[in-house]
């Protein structure tokens, strides 16, 4: 899983794991990671005395499951991360056992199984793991506000204003029909000089398969908001933009993206 974009998020994850206290999400996830690495699971193989265990772990969000209340409830996190995201991890691990995909990074599996749009079976699980890891990192407790520095400069250059970016992001999230995601992404080879763009994608598809580098995402599958907002997706999107989005995370990912592109 060690690609440039994922490495950029490592500081956030490490910070989370070092935290102590009433941290339900951390405890259970750390426990899960421990058992996955140290216990023979149904999806492991034996080669003589050595046991090869499941490849991917369920990465916890960089904050406790109740940290985004009241904007995104602990109840939602417990299902969204604890059930949906966990299932993608478990199912991908089962799917790749004994295949050449086992040796690859998550990002490589996503690109390979996207297969230029003719999706192979592991794509849905692999991409959804990637997308959800990214989604938790796109939010933070006390989020919202405005970006600053280099990120704000590029936003103003490519969208005209921060307000215009927000408008485009909200529209993309609101008009992605059915299940999917809305993204702010970095284009390393823009034909029109605009490096930042808003993208929406269906189901598990993400901008990686388009050759872009994701900077921010909002999950608009119904399971992401239905318990808290029911059918009111626009309300969920507004709250995401006003109270949840982590512009710090976006800035960090932009730095990595620019370094990669240089």
């Amino acid at each position, binding site marked *: 899983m060690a690609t440039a974009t994922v490495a950029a998020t490592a500081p956030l994850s490490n910070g989370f794991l070092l935290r102590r206290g009433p941290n339900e999400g951390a405890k259970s996830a750390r426990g899960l990671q421990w058992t996955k690495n140290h216990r023979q699971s149904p999806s492991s193989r034996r080669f003589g005395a050595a046991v090869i265990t499941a490849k991917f772990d369920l990465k916890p969000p960089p904050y406790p499951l109740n940290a985004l209340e009241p904007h995104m409830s602990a109840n939602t996190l417990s*299902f969204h991360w604890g*059930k*949906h995201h966990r*299932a993608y991890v478990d199912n991908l691990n089962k799917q790749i056992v004994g295949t050449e995909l086992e040796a690859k990074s998550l990002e490589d599996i996503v690109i390979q199984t996207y297969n230029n749009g003719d999706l192979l079976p592991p794509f*849905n699980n692999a991409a959804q793991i990637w997308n959800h890891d990214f989604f938790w990192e796109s939010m933070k407790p006390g989020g919202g506000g405005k970006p600053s520095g280099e990120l704000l400069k590029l936003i103003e250059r490519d969208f005209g204003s921060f307000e215009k970016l927000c408008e485009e992001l909200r529209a993309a999230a609101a008009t992605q*029909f*059915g*299940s*999917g995601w809305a993204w702010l992404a970095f284009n390393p080879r823009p034909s029109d000089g605009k490096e930042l763009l808003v993208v929406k994608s*269906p*189901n*598990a598809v993400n901008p990686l398969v388009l050759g872009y580098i994701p900077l921010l995402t909002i999950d608009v*599958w*119904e*399971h992401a908001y*239905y*318990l808290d907002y*029911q*059918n009111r997706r626009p309300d969920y999107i507004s709250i995401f933009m006003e109270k949840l989005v982590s512009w710090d995370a976006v800035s960090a990912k932009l730095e990595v993206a620019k370094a990669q592109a240089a």
Partner: protein
Amino acid sequence: MALRAIASRKTLAALGSGLRAQARLATTAAAAAASRGLVTFSLPDLPYDYGALEPAVSAEIMQLHHQKHHQSYVTNYNKALEQLEDAVARDDAPAVVKLQSAIKFNGGGHINHSIFWKNLAPIHEGGGEPPKGSLGWAIDADFGSWEAFVQKMNAEGAALQGSGWVWLGLDKEFKKLVVETTANQDPLVTKGADLVPLIGIDVWEHAYYLQYKNAKPDYLKNIWKVIDWKYASEVYEKECR
């Protein structure tokens, strides 16, 4: 045939002030469009109370599903059709083409949900009883057994990724029953021009999430307790005459 039944001028029964306001808006827009001779669609009433399908499907889900989701498809379908009429009138070919996805989403949503409400009934009105007569025999013939048919529907519904529907359809050319899935709000006919929908099960998350959360297979297992076969049998017998 199904569309004619849907395109009636029935107005919504008043079910609350918020809904009344929404209904007024919808019917005002519809009335305005109708005065220009444009066909408009309206939300069909449910032939049972929102709570009548409990415990298989909760009243909370039925109310949101009907009053919010289906209503929204109807409203946006009418809006898209009005915009289409305008685009055609001013010879704006790009605009006509651009409207196709909105028409498919929202028109499909209206078609699919209208069938879905007819596929459901409270247990005391026959919901849950497998079909008798020619459709019952056809299921045995084409799937091996009732159990095999239900298993196939549930497997396809569970495996569907993202949003969509699982269908029992009749291929009217070959007079064979098929199980098919469609993505998003695509009507069954998008999978084959000869396919007639008999039973549709909504597997969008909004159809079950508040009650079943991520346990889609449990929803699929339980909804059969309220699946009603009167409408499906009528359609089948008519096509196979």
